[in-house]
């Protein structure tokens, strides 16, 4: 397979805290193909946003060390000169941020904000830029584009603002979109509209999307492939249907089990013991999830947990999944995914 659009190898992002370096992203490798949506899921503190910012080169260089390789169309973004990076970022890679209110400048009309990056990257006349902007607004589902073009962010609703943010990301025809929690700050009906829009953009253009989220519902609606992260590492990676129907890693299974279900039952939800360790306190030897599943015997874990390919395209870290069961499970019938009800 050599149509890797993005090829990340052994990426390590370390933050300097009080003279010491702590890795928030700890040896992550994966690829994104053309026209593919890859979702990265995990809870706060798992390193998913640090990963997104590493790809976009948005970490402050003084306090962060980046190691490994982030190859975009064969060029390593970590080593290319800044001037070259500036040509790629915003043009070939677009980014959508979580909160549309803080991502937009309140002092400029939205049309001007969409045109801003075109001025940087494309040689277009003023009139052409304007036409392209109106076209983009229509593409992201804004019907009265002539009026919205002149409006300020505060005049628009949350959903409209997020559409404008997406239009900005699409302004220079990117091939890759990095979307950090694109629907989290929005109402449910707007969330559904924005996911449908992203899916439609993927189908219509050749776009690839790296979707960063903590919301398994969004993942299930959008992703082609899913990467689950815990404490800076990939713990499971699979096609979306496989992950939801046959989750293997204890963390993935616990997460799916702790969701409020489809039925209204007043039974207790599953709770994962303990808390996500902070990067300063994290024990980096052995299985990082082990402290949260203490009822699993120590010998079930690997000393130096590796990602194993258990089926084509399905990777799981550590061997503990083989003997994992929930404390209240009867041993033997522990292969129930959320869809098994």
């Amino acid at each position, binding site marked *: 397979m050599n149509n890797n659009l993005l090829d990340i190898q052994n990426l390590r992002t370390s933050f300097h805290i009080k003279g010491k370096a702590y890795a928030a992203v700890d040896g992550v490798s994966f690829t994104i193909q053309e026209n593919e949506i890859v979702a990265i899921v995990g809870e706060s503190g798992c390193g998913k946003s640090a990963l997104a910012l590493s790809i976009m080169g948005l970490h402050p260089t003084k306090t962060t060390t980046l190691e490994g390789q982030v190859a975009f169309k064969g060029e390593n973004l970590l080593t290319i000169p800044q001037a070259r990076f500036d040509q790629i970022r915003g043009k070939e890679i677009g980014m959508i941020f979580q909160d549309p209110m803080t991502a937009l400048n309140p002092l400029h009309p939205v049309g001007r904000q969409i045109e801003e990056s075109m001025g940087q990257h494309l040689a277009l006349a003023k009139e052409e830029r304007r036409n392209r902007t109106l076209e983009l607004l229509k593409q992201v589902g804004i019907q009265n584009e002539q009026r919205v073009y002149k409006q300020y962010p505060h005049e628009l609703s949350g959903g409209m603002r997020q559409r404008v943010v997406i239009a900005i990301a699409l302004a220079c025809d990117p091939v890759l979109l990095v979307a950090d929690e694109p629907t989290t700050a929005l109402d449910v009906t707007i969330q*559904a509209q924005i996911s449908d829009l992203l899916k439609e953009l993927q189908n219509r253009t050749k776009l690839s999307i790296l979707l960063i989220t903590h919301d398994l519902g969004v993942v299930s609606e959008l992703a082609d492939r899913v990467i689950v992260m815990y404490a800076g590492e990939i713990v499971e990676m699979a096609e979306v249907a496989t992950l939801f129907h046959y989750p293997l890693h204890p963390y993935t299974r616990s997460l799916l089990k702790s969701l409020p279900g489809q039925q209204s039952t007043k039974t207790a939800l599953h*709770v994962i013991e303990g808390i996500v360790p902070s990067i300063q306190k994290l024990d980096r030897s052995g299985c990082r999830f082990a402290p949260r599943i203490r009822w699993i015997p120590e010998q079930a874990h690997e000393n130096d947990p590796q990602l194993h390919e258990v089926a084509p395209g399905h990777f799981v870290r550590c061997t503990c999944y083989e003997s994992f069961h929930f404390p209240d499970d009867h041993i033997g019938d522990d292969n129930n995914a959320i869809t098994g009800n």
Partner: protein
Amino acid sequence: MPLLEIKNLHVHYPIRGGFFRRIVDTVQAVDGISFTLKRGETYGLVGESGCGKSSAGRAIIGLNRVTSGKVLFEGIDIAQLRGQARSNHRKEIQMIFQDPYSSLNAQKTVHSIIAEPLRNFERLSSKEELRRVQTLLDRVGLSPESIHKFPHQFSGGQRQRIGIARALALNPKLIIADEPVSALDVSVQAQVLNFMQDIQKEFNLTYLFISHDLGVIRHFCDRIGIMYKGRFVEEGTVEEIYNNPQHMYTKRLLAAIPEMDPVKRAEKAKQRRWIQAQYEETFDRFLDPDGKALELKKITDTHSAAVQ
């Protein structure tokens, strides 16, 4: 007698402008809602941002002024009470806020955060107060040494527990929870929801649960009211609302719940488009000439909807 009975509640916010900042217009955040809460039940108030669900909750507890209507708590209209009588009833209703990061004073220790309601309403010696705070901490599952710590030393879930301990300090009968888990991660969310269910049984609490998350509402509530532009569009038990929605707005809200089986997502997206088309075509029929929801009409004893 129901624990709480809301009758035709209105909450209007004035818009001031012009000369002398006179009132030029009003925002009708809550525009005539009525519902009752039975003892020990959990009632969910659902809607999108701006529908007035938080305004209603805050008006019931007295953080917003009630423009008109009645808030009958055990038969007494607490919206009309002033002075001592008001503060006596004020103890019975407590609130849990959305964001555990901003609802706790960062400069106070856990001790003084939890003791604050006690200091406001009860005269206790410092020894007694300490004992009460310790019991509460124990009840919400925080270690005894956390009493001298500050909020920033806790995780999100732990902070929400501190907020719950504060709400429990005066042994309230009704707790208004305004999006208590939306700022939390899924696994922490599960922790807090389980815990709220445990204390509900233990203290025989009644909850008014305000949320936009239909998954959480379905798991947690007995009955639901769905709000749109300050009015109810539908009210019923969880089963009635989720299995037999009558109002177009409810249908659209339910269609927006993400499909948790990736294999069925294309089908779900199709269904969503179909409902959206129907919504655009027929929604006018569900509104009065001012664009507000119609009067509620009874469908069964427990189920009513704002339909023609």
